[in-house]
């Protein structure tokens, strides 16, 4: 158990709400947008959940830590801010967008950077990417906009209060890791596997549900020039000629065995 060292830290964690992995994803009639099926359930992006957990663990180590949550999204996105507070964050800001749909990461980063909590943070944590759009850009773009050092895909980290730095391990290919030291303030994007995010505590969730969040209306914020545009969305091309096995479970099992036997894969 770490001894609490006196160090005042403001941590900002950027979180996003994403559809459940099993969500029905359709292409809108105009072919330009994704439409989610009715009854789609949403949850916190898993990478961001790990970022919140990492922040809460720092707070457990350094008692004078404040964790602020920032999220952009429609009204429903409020749920992930409240869940983060239930996990141990202190408060949150919701930049509310009116519509669903693609937001250029340049715009997202610009809005996040405009928040005073971003400018005053000692440490900003983002998920390495969102599970829905998988761009992995918002963290690096936000850091660049704020003029902060950053690094990505972090799988282990430790704050060093003596020299106001953070040491991180980032995951690279082939079973390698890379150790870096960043001067604070800095931005770090979190890879899953760094921790096992806790469930929100009931008492904290109750407080989270009573707490009033800071709300900013996206349509009243400065809108930077977008640098890319989704022109259309399509079903991905089939890379292989998929044969879909038909019939009962037993039929399918028998067909599979015969396919594997014919290829001498069972002997």
């Amino acid at each position, binding site marked *: 158990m770490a001894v609490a060292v006196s160090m005042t830290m403001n941590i900002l964690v950027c979180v996003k709400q994403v559809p459940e*992995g099993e*969500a*029905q*994803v359709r*292409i809108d009639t105009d072919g330009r947008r*994704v439409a989610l099926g009715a009854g789609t359930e949403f949850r916190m992006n898993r990478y961001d959940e790990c970022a919140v957990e990492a922040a809460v663990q720092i707070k457990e180590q350094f008692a004078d830590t404040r964790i602020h949550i920032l999220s952009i999204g429609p009204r429903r996105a409020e749920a992930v801010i409240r869940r983060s507070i239930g996990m141990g964050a202190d408060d949150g800001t919701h930049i509310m967008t009116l519509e669903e749909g*693609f937001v250029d990461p340049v715009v997202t980063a610009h809005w996040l950077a405009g928040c005073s909590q971003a400018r005053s943070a000692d440490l900003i944590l983002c998920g390495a990417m969102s*599970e*829905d*759009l*998988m*761009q*992995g*850009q918002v963290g*690096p*773009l936000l850091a*660049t906009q704020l003029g902060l*050092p950053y*690094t*990505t*895909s972090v799988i282990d980290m430790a704050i060093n209060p003596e020299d106001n730095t953070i*040491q991180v*391990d*980032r*995951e*690279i*290919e082939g*079973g*390698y*890791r*890379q*150790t*870096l030291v960043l001067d604070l303030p800095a931005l770090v994007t979190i890879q899953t*596997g760094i921790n*096992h995010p806790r469930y929100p505590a009931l008492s904290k969730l109750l407080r989270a549900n009573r707490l009033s969040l800071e709300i900013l209306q996206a349509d009243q914020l400065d809108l930077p*020039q977008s*640098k*890319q*545009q*989704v*022109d*259309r*969305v399509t079903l*991905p091309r089939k890379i*292989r*000629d*998929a*044969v*879909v*096995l038909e019939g009962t*479970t*037993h039929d*399918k*099992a*028998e067909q*599979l*065995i015969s*396919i594997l036997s014919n*290829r001498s*894969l069972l002997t």
Partner: protein
Amino acid sequence: MNHVGETQTIAVIAEYFAGAVRPTTYECVGFAKALQKLRPVNIKMVVLGDDVESCSRDLAQTTGADVLGIEAPQLSQYNGQVYQAVLYDVFNQKPPEIICAAHSSQGWDYGPGLAARLKAACITGVSQVSARGKEIYFSRDIYGGKVSADIISKTEKTLLTLQPGSFRWNPTRNQEPGLVNIISPAIDPQASNTRSTHIHQASDLDLSLAKVIVSAGRGIGEAENLDLIHKLAAAIPQAVVCGSRPIIDNGWLSYDRQVGVTGATVSPDLYLACGISGAAQHVSGMQGSALVVSINTDAMAAIFNQSDICIVEDLTVFIPTLLEKLSGAKKAK
């Protein structure tokens, strides 16, 4: 804007690791050559490292493109801050219309930051390029690969990171080699904040040699269901159990059994994907498999686009049935 027509320059940034150029570099060349079929493009290569003379010559020979080698002791290990500063200096005077790099732990790290500094659009994880009329479209997977988005750059400069495994190109030697220019910029010795690059967990398991892989994904649900995966692997000769990232994150399988971008790249005779959704990060690691069989309850799962045989079933029902029949088949012999 990336219109078809005037000759543009594409700068391909090689991926340098432990003194050599990684194979993803050639995939980026494959992308540049694919782009060349759509419009006139001049290809240039850039390689950064502490000793790049011989690999620069090799790249110039195999690609026919001009190569800029950037050499400095601080570039022996990858560092995002140093890469951004060095590449910004190289590109800022006369930026190429397109910069491309692999969507790897290097490319996705320095890419968006470099693009922001150059005021370029940044499109990550691109897996396809096409043209319609004057417009060039860069396609990337979204929603775990269930749909693909065609993206247009709206600026003069665009930085792309390319999904590993999406583009192919085989080095050739029957062409005029490009010109090699090696520069040694002065870099502040303190500039790199990389302290070390090290193997995290050493392992003797070489998945690239596996003949049969039975692979588990998040869709297996409970840790207990991993038993079914182990039993299935035991019933198929020479089968090895692997998993996608969530399974390894949960600690259900050891790190050396992860297939995908941050794990192993495999090419077995049979890849049996159980409850794997098929996100690009996983697919990159297994698309070289000879036969892919997938079991998933979600008929829309992206893995089915990468499969030869699709089985829409609950694996907790299907695998026991399969095991029963497999043992029956054995007894019959």
